[in-house]
């Protein structure tokens, strides 16, 4: 469920359709648009909302439209609120809260850091760690041949010691990075599919493992 849901959540953008040949709306929606309205469709190509043609083109109106679409989408896709569901089952340490930076310095836009900047940094970072948690806890996501997942031996990522990398691993015959050790554990105890270094799952696993050790000083080379 994870990857498609991740994509779907990112689909807050709405596309405007003046016509509505496909009557794929939800029960609340009349299949054909009333005259004088525009049909707005979600990127799933199904969920729609009718908007009066002369509704004011303001930010508030836009927000209403997207809220309505997302509420429908969530109702039609229960269990797809994967971040919340994952966090309810498996605690994931939250990233540094940077809100003390609000009003200071220069952000991605010209001007001071806004509350919204901080929220975006926080949400996006957390979401990646949470996605890592779903992979870490799922033998299917890891492609395990023997139904084994990481949490079976590392509850809440205990004993993964990411702060000790890089370090020399004689059995690997070289200095290992965290991802080398993750791959070793995927291949051996888990008997899953080794991941490319830039595979989204590998990136997410690293994010989750590092997140769980937040606050522990770096100590590369430690055994």
């Amino acid at each position, binding site marked *: 469920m994870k990857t498609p849901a991740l994509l779907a959540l990112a689909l807050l953008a709405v596309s405007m359709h003046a016509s509505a040949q496909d009557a794929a709306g939800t029960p609340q929606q009349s299949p054909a648009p009333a005259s004088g309205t525009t049909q707005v469709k979600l990127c799933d190509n199904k969920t729609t909302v009718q908007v009066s043609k002369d509704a004011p083109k303001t930010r508030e109106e836009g927000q209403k439209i997207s809220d309505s679409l997302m509420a429908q989408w969530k109702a039609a896709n229960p269990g797809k609120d994967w971040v919340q569901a994952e966090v*309810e*089952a*498996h605690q994931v340490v939250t990233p540094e809260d940077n809100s003390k930076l609000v009003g200071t310095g220069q952000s991605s836009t010209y001007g001071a850091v806004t509350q919204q900047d901080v929220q975006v940094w926080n949400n996006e970072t957390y979401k990646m760690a949470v996605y890592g948690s779903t992979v870490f806890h799922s033998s299917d996501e890891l492609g395990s041949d*023997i139904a*084994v997942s990481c*949490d*079976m031996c590392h*509850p*809440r990522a205990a004993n993964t010691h990411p702060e000790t990398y890089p370090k020399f691993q004689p059995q690997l015959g070289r200095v290992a990075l965290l991802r080398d050790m993750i791959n070793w554990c995927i291949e051996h105890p888990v008997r899953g599919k080794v991941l490319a270094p830039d595979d989204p799952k590998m990136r997410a696993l690293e994010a989750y493992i590092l997140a769980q050790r937040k606050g522990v000083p770096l100590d590369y080379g430690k055994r």
Partner: protein
Amino acid sequence: MSDDMNDKLKIPHIRSVETRHLEEREALFRGLRNLDRRAFLKASGGAAAAAVAAGVTYPFHSFLPINVAYADEGGAAQGFNFAYISDSHLYVKKTNERFVRQLLRAVDDVNSLDPQPDFVLYGGDLAQLGRREELDMGAQILKSLKAPVHMMAGEHDWYYDMGEHWNTLFGPEHYSFDHKGVHFVVLMSVHEKDFWSARGMSPAERMHTVAGLDNAVQSAFEVGAPQREWLKQDLDKVSATTPVIVFSHSPLYKLYRPWNFWTDDAEDVQAILQRFDHVTVLHGHTHQVLTNRIGNIQFHGMLSTAWPWPYAPQGLPALTVQMNRPNPFDANDGLGDGSVAVHPDGLVDKLYNLWNRNPMQVKASYLSSGGKSDIPVAPTLSSY
């Protein structure tokens, strides 16, 4: 490296430290096994000293007839041995053969004990997902044990059909029996309050939730009021001087709630056991060497045959000497089985037979002395 390569490089035949160590260890045990009882009593001190001199830190192997040391002492009860196997987490064989092989190894270990233990405790979590086929296969494998088996249930055996098939195979989940003057109680300590109905979970979803150690959706383990009542009544007829040994799957104390290393009504159960002079609790679930004492009660963990667990980041009892952090490159490290030598007074020496490492013994005298004497040797790599 091939032999002629060795010749060319003029490297004499070198045996590694590990090889030499294992050879010495093997020779020691072979020698000890061949001694008769009386000779053993005389020789064991010297053998142990020789072993220590040779750098062997844990000279006693689980398969030694430890009970003979007490056989001549007399007293009300006799000393005896029993063995344990625990936490095998079997999936059906076509899903995961590794865990099946590991249980077979433990069965071989126990069957090769000479003399045979009086009985074998199975410590719970025979199955991984509580399926009928998993439990059936486990029962089949345990049938090949030569000694009689006492079964205990774990959460992985239970939450698919709420113990229905386990009960069919093995009988009631809590019971008691007497053996050579010791009163044994087997508890079912992993009941959970209903978290599944309100969420509309299927049996498989319920099982998966409980199977995740760090899954926070589930409730805490508990013995529960009805079983505590049963325990009270069962112990009513037992005198305070009778040694009591309790088996529970979860530790009967509160260690670390986020991993359910925990029994929610532990204090209530401890209170029921308070009146006895000597009480020992043996628990599974934690997959590691774990030692604790609360008042008159001594607690020991059991090793798993499936996978080792890290030590909890908080709440570790002060008396616990950790086992070495397992080596991830050795698939059987941190795993094993073990045995328990029961003294005539009912207190026990607990042996952790760690596969691929020296066994680790935690003696009653270590616990009785509050950790002052017979301290087990600390490992090189402890958890952090």
